[in-house]
């Protein structure tokens, strides 16, 4: 859902208080106004996300499941978002995760990171910190040694830093 990026300029600045439902709407406009660096049509970005996932999977079917993408639903700051991905797997030579890739929906670029694993990993699990330009969907895709692909997705709300910040 796209919210308008500017408030009307005739907003009263003195003591007049708008009635409650209007105030709730005004407050709601604050969420999601983090502002993507590039504004692109939503449909194009979702297609790109699907294309990035498909490219990673080399055209193979990507099934939801077995992958756990952990990220806070509401993050303190989009510049540093802790994220973890783990996949259930015995991590033996015969059956293990070979790679995990994380993609995003609304950053200037879909790729976030790609990780390579093997039986010597012991656990198919990785954590890192990423940047999210705005409220959006994240997708984690895992490739297994049998050639199958599995995924998980998460929706993350990104708000502004808590304080009035004059720095760009």
């Amino acid at each position, binding site marked *: 859902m796209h919210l308008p990026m500017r408030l009307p300029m005739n907003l009263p600045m003195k003591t007049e208080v708008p009635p409650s439902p209007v105030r709730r709407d005004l407050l709601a406009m604050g969420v999601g106004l983090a502002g993507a660096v590039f504004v692109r049509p939503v449909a194009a970005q979702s297609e790109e996300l699907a294309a990035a996932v498909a490219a990673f999977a080399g055209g193979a079917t990507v099934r939801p499941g077995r992958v756990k993408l952990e990220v806070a639903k509401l993050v303190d700051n989009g*510049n*540093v978002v802790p994220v973890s991905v783990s996949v259930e797997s015995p991590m033996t030579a015969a059956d293990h995760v070979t790679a995990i890739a994380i993609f995003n929906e609304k950053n200037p670029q879909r790729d976030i990171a790609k*990780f390579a694993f093997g039986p010597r990993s012991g656990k198919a699990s990785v*954590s*890192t*910190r990423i*940047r999210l330009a705005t409220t959006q969907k994240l997708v984690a895709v895992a490739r297994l040694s049998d050639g199958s692909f599995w995924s998980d997705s998460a929706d993350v709300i990104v708000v502004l830093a808590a304080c009035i910040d004059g720095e760009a």
Partner: protein
Amino acid sequence: MARTLLNIPKTAQRGEVIEIRTLIAHKMDSGFLPDAQGQRIPRDIIQRFACRYNGEQVFSAELFAAVSANPYLVFYLVATESGMLEFEWQGDNGFTQTERVPITVT
């Protein structure tokens, strides 16, 4: 040489799955942001990370501009024998750094 924080258990049992935490100081300029004068700051990121255990690669990562500054990576490996863990970061503008930490496996 960029500062690094490496958290590795000094000793481990053979067969134990151990957690490795790495943090390296790097601005990870995405290439999408302007400076104070409005000029786009060119991309300058770490693109590759690899962990080698007695010479054999056990984990690697390809990082993009969406990774936060001072990249933090937590991953796992099976303690198999005593020896050396080597961590290597490579990136734009010829950035390269290698750190070595010994590990004792009993």
